């Protein structure tokens, strides 16, 4: 029986954890406040699903799959129903929190009125969690949406930013890097509309500093847009 290799292969050695200090040594001497961890995004991972996407920020790896739009025989409203399931996190509170954000973000960009009586299932699997899961999940979902061809308003660029006590920022902190932060924010927005789909702030940020933190997050989110574009262009090339 012939075996066909899928177009995606990640060598097992690459899945092993890279220590933070080692990672910095590979990339550059020290990560500046505005650089991301080494990242990898992919639009279209499997062929079997209607859409799939993968996002990797440092040691955080998230896979998103979309099944649908399909009729499930029960849903008969004049718009599509979107469901989000999140797997791979231990903390149930965290699952509920992230699921709400993912749901809100996805439903705000998808044109649900174009799919009456259909169900769009979004399945997010967290393969490993090292900080910034929500932002990685949002990136993976937006790539999966692009891959699925479901009509939506546009790409969502998302970023996780932390803030330290002396008001300096850190882009995309890992779990160990965010240990000494005051708080942080996961920020997602649609660049071509310049509107936000997700703001998720935590910690204790002085109210005066909130505005500049969001502004910084927006700038960092803009920086990630070309990477997402490239991933989508690559997936189209592969198709051809």
């Amino acid at each position, binding site marked *: 029986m012939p075996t066909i290799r899928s177009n995606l292969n990640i060598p097992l050695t690459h899945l092993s954890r890279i220590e933070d200090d080692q990672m910095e040594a590979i990339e550059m001497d020290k990560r500046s406040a505005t650089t991301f961890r080494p990242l990898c995004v992919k639009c279209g991972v499997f062929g079997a699903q209607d859409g799939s996407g993968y996002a990797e920020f440092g040691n955080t790896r998230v896979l998103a799959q979309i099944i649908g739009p399909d009729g499930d025989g029960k849903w008969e409203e004049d718009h599509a129903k979107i469901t989000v399931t999140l797997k791979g996190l231990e903390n*149930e*509170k*965290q699952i*509920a*929190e992230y*699921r*709400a*954000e993912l*749901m*809100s*973000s996805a*439903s*705000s*960009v998808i044109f649900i009125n174009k799919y009456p009586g259909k169900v769009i299932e979004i399945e997010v699997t967290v393969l490993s969690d090292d900080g910034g899961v929500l932002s990685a999940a949002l990136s993976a979902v937006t790539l999966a949406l692009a891959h699925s061809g479901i009509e939506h*308003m546009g790409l969502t660029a998302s970023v996780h930013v932390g803030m330290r006590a002396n008001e300096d920022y850190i882009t995309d902190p890992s779990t160990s890097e965010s240990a000494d932060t005051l*708080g942080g*924010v996961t920020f997602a927005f*649609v660049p071509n*509309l*310049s*509107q*936000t*789909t*997700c*703001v*998720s*702030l*935590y*910690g*204790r*940020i*002085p*109210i005066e500093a*909130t*505005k500049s933190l*969001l*502004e910084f997050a*927006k700038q960092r989110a803009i920086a990630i847009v070309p990477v997402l574009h490239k991933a989508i262009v690559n997936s189209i090339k592969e198709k051809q």
Partner: protein
Amino acid sequence: MEINLSDDEKLFLIAGVEADIRNDGRSCQDFRTIVLERGVLSGTNGSCRVQLGQTTDILTGIKLELESYDSATEKEAKQPMQFHVDFSANASSQFAGKGGDQYGEEISAAFQVAYSRSLDIMSNLSKTHLAEGYRWKINVDVSVLQWAGSIPDAISLAVIGALSDLEIPEVEVAPDDGGKVSIVLKRPRIGGNVRDEEVPVQMWRLDVQSCPLLLTISKIGTANLVDCSPEEECCIRSQLLIGIAKSVSTPGNDTYQTTCIKQLGGGLLEMESIENMIEMAQKTSIGLYEALAKRLKAEEKRKPGHSFLL
């Protein structure tokens, strides 16, 4: 209770709030009447009932639990409060069966986030840590009895009310053999012919003046609103859940901190609107903190066991 508004009714409502006049006569930044009662449940260590606009009704009870944890694996002090929100099917038919479970989980997760740094924010919360490996766990259980909009706002008031009502026993920690400790309730010594068990245990209370508030600010048309009624909730374009904590480190000169912002329920927002909504939340929280402090001071204690249901 399900609300179905026609397009014309929605247009009327939206045009109204944009002109700062709501259907019930309030302006955009007004709350409905708030009723707050404490000590309503006798089976809890602290309880509170909050009614918003005569319809939204929230019952909060707190139970204390002496928890032992592994101090080797848990290096950083964990915040002792655990939230659980439960929607009664009596509140609205949409919560029947498992209908309210997901929403309840989401709200309790939001409260968990808003209170995640409460050890730094609330001045004497660290007293719940008794000894190496032992602490009080504060279980906050919220039941939504009636639903008429603005559930998170009402819950956050009820949580603060219940926390202020919460009595935590004073304990004496004595070293025991094997590196362990024994924890004994502290009773004041009074002379005479009284048995030790009959002397009431000393209690202490939490300082709640900087407890985080969780407010919903909703965008309808171009206006930002607090405390939406169910009709208004049908017209919401997008909503922010904003947690604000007052820090009272310098008396008379309060500073405010955001402990949580969440964009929920779908919808898109401009950056500028977000800033305006945060500003509005801060303004609202000032008034709400004041009203709450006044009420907590003035409220008469109920007899334990005499609930509002009687």
